[in-house]
């Protein structure tokens, strides 16, 4: 993170850093196919938090996995910093993965249970050829950043950590790669309420202090509005609504969005408070 070059390489705030253009994903299933993501175009602006909201099964994770290049697209284009990355592979893809990182929903299955936290964190850095001391320093910084005691955590196995601690380790892992974009796919939904708030605050912090572009995926429009600058609403693989957070909350155009908002009665009040500080 103290790496000056990559800070300078970061595009100016407001430019699209990552974008999906007419992206579609179909899965073959018995007796035909289903369209999980249907002709979706969306831009991620540097230094902003964009939330993708939708009920379970609306295609959010599929979209995220395509953006992450963990799953091929059926059609459409993914571009990063103006460059088409839809079909890159090998070393180029690994380079892309340094810039675009993710934290997933299940903080347990995200871990290789046979390795300690330290081994998991060091894994990614081996390829970058850092010196041992720099590496340990980096681990310490990143674990500290998410509020974990480095000396404690590095020797632990995933099953010795709580769900919240595991999720923080995963955030630390992503941070160590010094990414420019962070995708959080339901990263807070398996945490209980108090941990969720602190995880959300960590993400908030990252955006403010590190200028990270965050894609925040959730089924909970309340969380989305708490964190995001812009909100995109997905239903059955389609984007049905998009706009700034205030637009989506105060002037929703789509019926589905209105229904999602109706489930969170206190949203408007609590949002004003949280945005005031």
């Amino acid at each position, binding site marked *: 993170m103290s790496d000056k070059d990559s800070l300078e390489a970061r595009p100016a705030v407001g430019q699209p850093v990552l974008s999906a253009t007419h992206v579609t994903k179909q899965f073959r299933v018995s007796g035909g196919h289903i369209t999980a993501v249907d002709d979706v175009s969306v831009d991620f602006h540097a230094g902003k938090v964009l939330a993708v909201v939708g009920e379970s099964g609306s295609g959010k994770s599929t979209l995220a996995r395509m953006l*992450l290049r*963990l799953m091929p697209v059926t059609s459409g284009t993914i571009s990063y910093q103006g460059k088409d990355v839809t079909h890159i592979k090998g070393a180029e893809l690994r380079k892309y993965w340094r810039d675009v990182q993710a934290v997933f929903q299940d903080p347990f299955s995200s871990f*290789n249970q046979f390795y300690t936290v330290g081994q998991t964190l060091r*894994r990614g850095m081996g390829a970058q050829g850092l010196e041992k001391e720099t590496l340990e320093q980096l681990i310490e910084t990143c674990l500290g950043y998410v509020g974990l005691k480095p000396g404690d955590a590095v020797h632990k196995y995933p099953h010795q950590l709580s769900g919240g601690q595991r999720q923080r380790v995963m955030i630390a892992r992503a941070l160590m*790669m010094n990414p420019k974009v962070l995708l959080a796919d339901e990263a807070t939904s398996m945490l209980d309420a108090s941990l969720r708030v602190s995880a959300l605050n960590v993400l908030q912090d990252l955006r403010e202090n590190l200028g990270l572009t965050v894609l925040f995926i959730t089924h909970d429009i309340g969380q989305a509005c708490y964190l995001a600058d812009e909100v995109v609403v997905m239903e059955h693989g389609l984007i049905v609504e998009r706009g700034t957070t205030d637009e989506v909350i105060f002037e929703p155009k789509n019926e589905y969005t209105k229904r999602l908002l109706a489930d969170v009665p206190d949203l408007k009040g609590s949002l004003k408070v949280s945005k005031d500080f």
Partner: protein
Amino acid sequence: MTNISSSAVVAEAEGPLVPVGLPTEPKKAKPGWRSLNFGSRMWIALGIIGFVAALAFIGPLFYPFGPDEKVGSLYDYPTWMNTPPTFEHVLGTENFGYDVLAVLMASARTSIIIGLLAGTIAVVIGVAIGVLAGYVGGWVEELLMGFTNIVLAIPSIVILILISISLQSTNVPFLKGAVGLALVIGITSWPWTARAVRAQASSVATREHIDVAKLSGARTPSIMVRDVLPYLASYAVMAWVLQLASAILAESTLSMLGLGPSGANSLGKQLFWALAFQAVATGAWWAFLPPTIVLTMISFGLLYLQSSLDEVFNPRLRRGKKKNLAKAAARRAETARKLAENQPVEVNA
């Protein structure tokens, strides 16, 4: 023969599905009951295997006669059947006048070594092919599994016999012996393991930690070794135990056909000579019964060990069973209550 390992493919659905005399409140059942039961299974298996291993590797250190030492003539009775009884040659002599027990110990040792070697070769090949196919997928998987199925479809006994015969006519001494036989058995018996491991590996490949490893910049070989293999280790151990048993049986089959390792004793060769010298027809049971019993003990012990390992490595299997048992018990209790209260009972409930 090698088909034994097919049980590694099928998740075992053994055990009583509708046990009799269930407790009506399964939660109050004695907590240690299951684990005690499974523990004893494991100990019985290890006991049997340990006994045979001791016979093969420790026995010869204390037994006064060697397997190449002529101590009598064709099929001398066990000495405890003489008057007065002695315990000099407890199992009598075999066709060449060697002490049966001494030969038995040497044979067991060769058979175990062949089994270990062949089983290890089979598991290494099977796991390598299975992980590669299951993790990489696509045309690599098609190709490797196509090849595996072809090898599986060829009757392996035919291949075994053909290769064994051709090895026996080579001039390379080490290929004629136990090592050659182990190689032949090993390279013909991996397909079952490969298939079982492939299925497992492709399911591990969908776990999120694989995606995380990719995002961390790990390359495919590193992911296969560090992120897929450890999740298959328990599986590989069980496959190895089965391959061991089937390799030992394969060795005895080949040896009984006269294709045994030259220059070494083996359980199958012992049976071969006993048959060739009319032991069965003349009632010389001490010549053919002991190797048969030792063979049975080895394969029974290994199969039993495998099924108890299955429960150790798959706690879900145990819990799943328990849960099913509990559910079944609850259902029966409910039905019984309804019957008792003269309420209608759904037939298919």
